[in-house]
């Protein structure tokens, strides 16, 4: 993608008149966008967001250390949750695909339930329920466990969709060679499924990393929480805007790197399926776009 679409379902190649018109609209639209940007910048300027006082904090080593610790806390929560959610997803997917009802039904119930409950409410369960019984768990673990259950359930669906979409001949051939079901799944289906689903898995991990920001609400000292602390300092004129811009830049660059990795993986996967055999289409379940 990128660049001029040669021909689209909506338009032909523009002729000279259309090109002229498009150029005119293009200029108009650019001016409009520039005006919008200028207005925002003017608002910033008018309310003194560019004053040195509001940015000074970000140059102090102590504040930079705060931000770094926040970033590390975000990565720690994200890393732990990913490390737990992936195996949880694999196990739940295996349960959903099991031939035994005793395994299939509970696994299905768990996956469906945890996907339907708002993630924040799941996190609240881990955070507040122990308080009712006179104990408490660290905010880190309330966040990580909530993220694990939700993302694990979503990943389970991704794994399952991937396994289901592997061509039927693959497992039939494996059974014909005398493999058992466990062997077919682990040696034949799972490798192909993971390869096909890798981009989707990575984008779910982006979602997971973004959702660590919910830790802010239960006062886990991650990046956003630190940002609120720094932005709330009256001495520096409540520099919320500068601080959040920095925090946003951090999130956007982390996630962009992950997303780029996902895109590259996708392209590589597509290229390496040179045979005409099924390039497993990413299943268009609504959940694949999930992660909203």
């Amino acid at each position: 993608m990128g660049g001029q679409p040669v021909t689209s379902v909506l338009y032909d190649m523009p002729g000279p008149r259309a090109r002229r018109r498009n150029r005119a609209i293009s200029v108009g639209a650019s001016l409009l966008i520039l005006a919008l940007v200028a207005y925002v910048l003017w608002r910033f300027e008018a309310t003194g967001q560019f004053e040195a006082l509001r940015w000074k904090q970000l140059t102090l080593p102590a504040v930079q250390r705060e931000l770094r610790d926040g970033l590390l806390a975000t990565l720690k929560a994200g890393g732990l949750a990913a490390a737990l959610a992936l195996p949880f997803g694999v196990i739940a997917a295996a349960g959903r695909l099991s031939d035994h009802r005793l395994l299939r039904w509970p696994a299905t119930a768990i996956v469906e339930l945890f996907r339907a409950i708002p993630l924040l409410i799941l996190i609240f369960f881990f955070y507040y329920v122990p308080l009712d019984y006179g104990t408490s768990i660290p905010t880190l673990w309330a966040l990580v466990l909530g993220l694990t259950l939700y993302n694990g359930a979503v990943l389970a669906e991704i794994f399952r969709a991937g396994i289901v979409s592997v061509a039927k001949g693959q497992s039939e051939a494996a059974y014909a060679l005398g493999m058992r079901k466990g062997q077919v799944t682990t040696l034949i289906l799972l490798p192909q499924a993971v390869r096909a689903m890798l981009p989707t898995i990575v984008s779910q991990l982006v979602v997971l990393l973004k959702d660590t920001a919910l830790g802010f609400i239960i006062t886990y000292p991650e990046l956003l929480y630190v940002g609120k602390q720094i932005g709330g300092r009256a001495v520096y004129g409540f520099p919320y805007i500068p601080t959040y811009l920095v925090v946003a830049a951090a999130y956007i660059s982390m996630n962009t790197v992950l997303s780029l990795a996902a895109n590259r993986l996708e392209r590589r996967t597509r290229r390496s399926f040179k045979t005409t055999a099924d390039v497993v289409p990413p299943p268009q379940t609504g959940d694949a776009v999930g992660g909203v």
Partner: protein
Amino acid sequence: MGEFLRVFSDNRSIFVDGFLTTIQLFALAGVGCLVVGTLLGAMRVSPIPALRAFGAFYVNMIRNTPLTLVFAFLIFGTPKLNVNLSFFTFASIALLAYTSAFVCEVVRSGINTVPVGQGEAARALGMTFTQVLSLIVLPQAFRSITPPLISILNALLKNTTVAAGFAVGEAGAIQDILSELGEKRTPTLLWITICFLGLVLPLIVAQRALERRWGGNR
């Protein structure tokens, strides 16, 4: 069990208020994000490079930003720009701005699933742009757009709970209110979950049904 039921029946009005606010947020942001998301999607498939770039920029920024940060920016940041709105309005704008990016992507990829030949054939028949769009492209794109769109709305509904972290009295905040009234958190959270499942379930069922009906033939 009696205790569990009592928590709900004693505080029914608080639950009703909370979920009404949730539904208001959902309705406002839902309608808004469908409109804005479709406009952004139109920008991204338009022949105007400036609009395409703007759409792409917006989507890439927002999709890589946590919703909680969008909330925090609007609720703590924008008042410093002398823009003062109620928390509820800010929350609606945050959800709208965030969800629009995802709607945009679904609309765009939905339009791209219509084979190019369809548009070419329609233009060869002399149809105008509006006719091509409304008679040929959109009806076909609608099928691939609707199921993921419902799933986005479903996510939006669940995401409204984030507003609870920013002093908006919606469903996620019920347990805070009740805790101040001396109720335990556990039964309240269970009730919130049950009510949410009641709201989310119809959306999930609708999405699955449409997927089953339309999914097979692409």
